[in-house]
């Protein structure tokens, strides 16, 4: 196994120092997203082991901390997908296999967007809303969900997303469009119009 960087110019921290240097940061980041201490610990371990395997490819183009955080983000997405797959949402969108079905043949809305009463700070502070959001993301096609998370949470641009998911630019816009439509619809059904869950005005 090639566990050391092949590029001698890279003076990255050696793996035996990673836990000491980045353990707290990675743990805190994971904990904020998954809100479960033991899952967060597992994610740190999975991340560092994956990083160890890929260390030969680390060229020092980004800081090691950024690189490790990037790996962690992928692990978190996988974790959330596994978690929410086990807790299926309401079956309302069962027939909505494709976002295309939201429109008729002429391109008019079939499932018309409803009104949302919401402000971003209020939504963000509601743990249940964020959970509903990630459950919705787990429910939409995988690449779309990943692209959406990379774009909207990690703030990557579509060029970087194309590289990471190995897709063309046009493809990235198509899957982001679908992901956004499906997420909007899922949140409307499972949050904004769901009984008893509607946020207080």
């Amino acid at each position, binding site marked *: 196994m090639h566990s050391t960087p092949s590029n001698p110019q890279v003076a990255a921290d050696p793996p035996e120092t990673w836990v000491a240097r980045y353990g707290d940061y990675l743990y*805190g980041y994971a904990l904020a997203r998954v809100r479960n201490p033991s899952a967060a610990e597992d994610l740190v371990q999975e991340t560092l082991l994956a990083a*160890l395997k890929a260390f030969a490819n680390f060229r020092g183009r980004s800081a090691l901390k950024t690189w490790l955080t990037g790996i962690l983000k992928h692990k978190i997405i996988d974790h959330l997908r596994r978690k929410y797959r086990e807790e299926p949402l309401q079956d309302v969108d069962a027939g909505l296999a494709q976002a295309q079905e939201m429109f008729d043949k002429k391109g008019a809305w079939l499932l018309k967007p409803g*009104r949302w009463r919401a402000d971003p700070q209020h939504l963000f502070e509601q743990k249940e809303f964020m959970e509903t959001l990630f459950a919705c993301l787990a429910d939409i096609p995988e690449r779309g969900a990943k692209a959406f998370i990379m774009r909207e949470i*990690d703030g990557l641009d579509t060029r970087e997303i194309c590289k990471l998911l190995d897709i063309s630019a046009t493809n990235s*816009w198509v899957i982001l469009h679908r992901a956004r439509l499906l997420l909007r619809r899922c949140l409307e059904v499972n949050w904004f119009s769901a009984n008893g869950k509607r946020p207080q005005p």
Partner: protein
Amino acid sequence: MRHWIINCRKISRMVSDSLDRKLPFHQRVGIRIHLLMCRYCARNRRQQLLLRKVLRRYEQHCVRHAESALLPEDARSRIQAELMRHCHFPKP
């Protein structure tokens, strides 16, 4: 009127694209015109922007949290041991 200007599916695609890249002038104008006429597309756009705001806050929250939390001691030594078990890196 150009056909695409009255097509909500195409407008929703352009609205999505506009969140990822700068659109050509005629498309930006087309979206504006459509949104004036179509409350559903206007809602869709507002809601997409709202989700973006919520998620940016969320990411900031994660980073702040990361700067304050501490990996528990037992987990720290367990992960360290696991890491050492998986690598046979030469001493520098």
